């Protein structure tokens, strides 16, 4: 069975380590914050200038001057710091964030990512996504393996305009966890009950299937 959004977030959360500074994109990545293992400390970076994002405020705590990069009202966690956008992206661009999780439309075997622009549709902009993919060493892309129409999003070459070139090495889809290496996707884990054959069929880019591919468990 394909993973649910929550299971995808749970799987990503297993990549967290105590003491990690993490930037979570909008959508499934945001859910990862709900699955930080008990007793583990992780600090969330929000690119509008907040390191140490806390939970949403209560009605009483709500404050227009305290928002995250998704423009949602938030709070600051203990140990938080707040700074300008230039400082925030100095952190990101300078590679100081330990893990970045973000969504995408397409990823290819060269590690390219397309996530911000569909020609013909209204283009709203890349926001901080291009800085995030260029700045981080450790990025996990989360997306469904195929579009609603069944078209693979794991391609030999991205068809949409890129967000970043050659910067992605880890992809978690609803079917599999894959790494990109030597110009191919390498199947590292399967969603429960999903066969390597099914994943191969739904992966347009070259897929390397090791002899043993463990099944995820939740």
């Amino acid at each position, binding site marked *: 069975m394909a993973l649910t959004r929550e299971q995808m977030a749970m799987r990503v959360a297993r990549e967290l380590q105590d003491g990690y500074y993490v930037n979570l994109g909008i959508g499934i990545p945001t859910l990862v914050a709900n699955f930080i293992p008990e007793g583990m400390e992780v600090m969330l970076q*929000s690119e509008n200038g907040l390191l140490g994002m806390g939970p949403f405020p209560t009605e009483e705590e709500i404050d227009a001057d305290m928002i995250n990069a998704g423009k949602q009202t938030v709070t600051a966690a203990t140990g938080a710091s*707040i700074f*300008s956008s230039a400082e*925030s992206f100095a952190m990101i661009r300078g590679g100081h964030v330990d893990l970045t999780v973000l969504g995408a439309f397409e990823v290819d075997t060269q590690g390219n990512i397309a996530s911000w622009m569909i020609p013909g549709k*209204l*283009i709203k*902009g890349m926001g901080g996504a*291009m800085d995030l993919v260029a700045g981080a060493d450790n990025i996990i892309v989360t997306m469904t393996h195929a579009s609603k129409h069944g078209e693979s999003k794991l391609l030999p070459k991205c068809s949409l305009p890129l967000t970043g*070139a050659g910067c992605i090495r880890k992809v978690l889809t609803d079917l599999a966890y894959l790494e990109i290496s030597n110009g191919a996707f390498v199947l590292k884990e399967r969603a429960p009950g999903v066969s390597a054959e099914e994943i191969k069929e739904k992966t347009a880019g070259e897929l390397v299937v090791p002899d043993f591919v463990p099944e995820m468990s939740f």
Partner: protein
Amino acid sequence: MSGFDKVVNSYEEALAGLEDNMTVIAGGFGLCGIPENLIQQIKVMGTKGLTIVSNNCGVDGFGLGVLLEDKQIRKMISSYVGENAMFEKQLLAGELEVELTPQGTLAEKMRAGGAGIPAFYTATGFGTPVAEGKEVREFNGRSYILEESITGDFAIVKGWKADRYGNVIYRDTAQNFNPLAATAGKITIVEVEEIVEPGKLQPAQIHTPGIYVDRLILGTFEKRIEQRTVRQSG
């Protein structure tokens, strides 16, 4: 004499000298920390053909969105726009130009503009449409693109507290692009919630030193919230 008294008493005075076709750099992220009264004054003045440098373009009827109503904006330099219907309409009608710039590059362009750095290299945008027409250069085996700095005829900034010298501090995440915008305007105008006595702000805790600030005005702010998200208390 009053060389360091940056305080002006009206928004007319604050924006005196703004003319058609000028470039205005604005602080703020979404609707957070935006110079809402200064924007409103630009609407009142009816200045046209403006190039606005701002991360976003407000919403219909608030923030920079109000400048769309009378088509005062010719060009937006932003990382994320189109949260309002009017924006989309003018863009599709060819009445509005947009130069999309990655958020971190936009912030760094403003800082560089204020800091006398005409251009810098960044990996952000390499291999993407953002790199089109820009020089690519390798440093230590990695490819970077050349980005030029931005300055404006005016910068409009929202601060929290300031003294008459123009020393400013910002409140929480309402800081965002504001201190960067403040450095990059030929004329920088800051509106704040409170003007305090000189000496009240700790020198080492000032976010924007007064040297960057030309005019300072006390305002009252609506501070609209874009995404009101709450948890249950208790």
